[in-house]
């Protein structure tokens, strides 16, 4: 919020934005529930992008395997809120004869915690690695997690392999089942609207937490490491622990988003957690403006929304021009991402909406000094 504005104008702006956000699903919903669904997914991406922003934007650690934390949160929820475990493991069936149902208030912190542990496991071996090597190793971790999710169906069927886990229960909040349309004094509120409000609330919470971290002792330590790790160490910062904290906290946000995703979609499979998804989230952070929360949110909304919007537009255009669909929407989405990454890096490396005190030079990407001969 520009600080030059007088107080009442700022308050008015906040109220206006809050109102707009409150009625957004009803406005968009006139075009069909599918659009509200898109917004719900966009909110999930906002959470993911903000989580990754801690690792990439603040601490300057390029993580190409971030989707693994999303997967951890999602599968945890899937296992704890679906019939899969009781169907496949007798001892669990006897322990929980009524089936496994868990409150969202239990699973969200659990998901965050488990993802944080994974984050530390990922971060610990990578602490002394240089930028591009770190990227490749994190990519490897992401792939390892996906391969395990895909194959842990024999001899013990933990993840149900490529078929994934279905019949995941929707979230119940204060007695309201978010998976069902609710009626409220004559108004019908579909499930996607309900999830919208939940996701919005959690996204706002994550935004608040992120900004608080940014303007704190820890946030400054992260940025110091990003700018010059050696100098940061010389100023007494325990870079090892601080980096691990970045991984853990960033991962925990991903885990929370993952749990919400599993409940929302009702179904998870390893395909949703592939390398392309990690790349998409990295793109959102980098293209939006690394380390700058408004920029990251913009990047997430744009890159989540544009492909969907394009999908509705290019279909008819291609029909008109070529008589049939030349390029599938998914292919178009990937082309868009790939080209965007190249173009932005070449012409606006600081992102679309960088932090105000950034000059033309790339904000926040570690300089690295002399290129050493080996990965350390």
């Amino acid at each position: 919020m520009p600080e030059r504005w007088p107080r009442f104008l700022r308050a008015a702006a906040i109220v206006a934005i809050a109102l707009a956000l409150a009625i957004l699903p009803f406005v968009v919903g006139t075009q069909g529930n599918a659009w509200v669904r898109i917004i719900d997914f966009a909110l999930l991406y906002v959470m993911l992008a903000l989580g990754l922003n801690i690792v990439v934007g603040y601490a300057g650690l390029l993580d190409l395997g971030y989707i693994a934390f999303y997967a951890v949160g999602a599968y945890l929820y899937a296992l704890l809120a679906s019939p899969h475990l009781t169907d496949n493991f007798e001892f669990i069936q006897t322990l929980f004869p009524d089936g496994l149902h868990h409150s969202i208030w239990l699973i969200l912190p659990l998901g965050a915690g488990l993802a944080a542990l994974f984050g530390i496991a990922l971060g610990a071996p990578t602490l002394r690695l240089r930028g591009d090597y770190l990227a490749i190793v994190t990519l490897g971790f992401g792939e390892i997690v996906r391969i395990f999710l895909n194959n842990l169906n024999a001899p013990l069927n933990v993840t149900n392999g490529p078929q994934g886990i279905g019949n995941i229960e929707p979230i119940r909040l204060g007695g309201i089942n978010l998976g069902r349309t609710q009626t409220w004094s004559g108004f019908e509120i579909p499930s996607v609207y309900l999830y919208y409000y939940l996701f919005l609330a959690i996204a706002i919470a994550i935004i608040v937490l992120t900004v608080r971290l940014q303007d704190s002792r820890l946030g400054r330590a992260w940025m110091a490491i990003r700018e010059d790790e050696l100098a940061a160490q010389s100023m007494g910062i325990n870079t090892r622990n601080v980096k691990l904290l970045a991984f853990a906290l960033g991962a925990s946000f991903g885990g929370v988003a993952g749990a919400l995703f599993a409940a929302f979609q009702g179904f998870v499979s390893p395909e949703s957690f592939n390398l392309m998804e990690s790349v998409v989230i990295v793109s959102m952070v980098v293209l939006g403006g690394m380390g700058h929360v408004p920029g990251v949110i913009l990047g997430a909304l744009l890159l989540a929304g544009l492909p969907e919007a394009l999908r509705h537009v290019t279909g008819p255009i291609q029909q008109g021009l070529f008589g049939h669909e030349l390029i599938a929407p998914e292919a178009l989405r990937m082309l868009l991402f790939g080209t965007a990454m190249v173009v932005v890096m070449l012409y606006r490396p600081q992102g679309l909406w960088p932090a105000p005190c950034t000059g033309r030079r790339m904000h926040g990407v570690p300089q690295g000094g002399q290129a050493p001969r080996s990965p350390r």
Partner: protein
Amino acid sequence: MHLDILLQQILNGLVLGSVYALVALGYTMVYGILQLINFAHGDVLMVGAMVGVTVVGLLASSGLPGPAVLVIALLAAIPVCILLALTIERIAYRPLRNAPRLAPLITAIGLSIVIQTLAMIVWKPNPIVFPDLLPTDPIPIAGALLAPKQLLILIVAGVLMAGLLLLVNRTKLGRSMRATAEHPQIAQLMGVDANRVIAVTFAIGAALAATAGILIALNYNIVQFSMGFIPGLKAFTAAVLGGIGNLGGAVLGGLLLGVIESLAAGYIGDLTGGFLGSHYQDIFAFLVLIVVLVFRPSGLMGERVADRA
């Protein structure tokens, strides 16, 4: 463990490893000169294979003998891949030579996605069969069996690697490459054109990758737009294992990784009591990468880095 099976696994591993070595050489050469991981290298391999399968398809009804078709496919794929690699260098790397090192990595990832998607559009997402162009009767070697195509892979890879080592160590061009790798500014002062050396490096790497792509296609009889990613990553692991920047290391790393993978895939079932099957094969390369980078980042043949407290 029967010795025959062990020998078979090792032979298979050497075949696999020779291909990794060819690709690893490309990574290590570029890294030696630019200190940059060429993330799009695996996609050059894929394009080589796709061009190859297209040529093979076109010549299917020509009546030419298999080996001739193979040679023609190679001769078609190599120039295309060289062009592709030079384009990548021009677009993604050259403008960012003085940028922070993560910038070219991000552009490379972006280009990799674009290339893969274009390949998916042109050649369609489904896998395409690459026919066996050589006779398939296996050749017995000391109790193990080697298919003629596997023998071809070993020979071709061996010849190319020997050729490259000769080029780098005995020719003027090779000297320029080594000088630029060691000290770019001084090499330029001595009259070496850095841009030309870099272009040649990418070209050679692309030619090797194109060959590797066709050899992989021949070995597994299948190609697909996504086939470059995993071999690319594994070859990169091989380069790191051998010592990034070191050509001999890339060869050693490639062969070693191939053998490790082959043995591990063969015995993983026994080792883990059936808990992990051979689908986990791909993980080994990642694990090797992580272990090497954590415990010996300079690789097997790399220079030891000075001690840091």
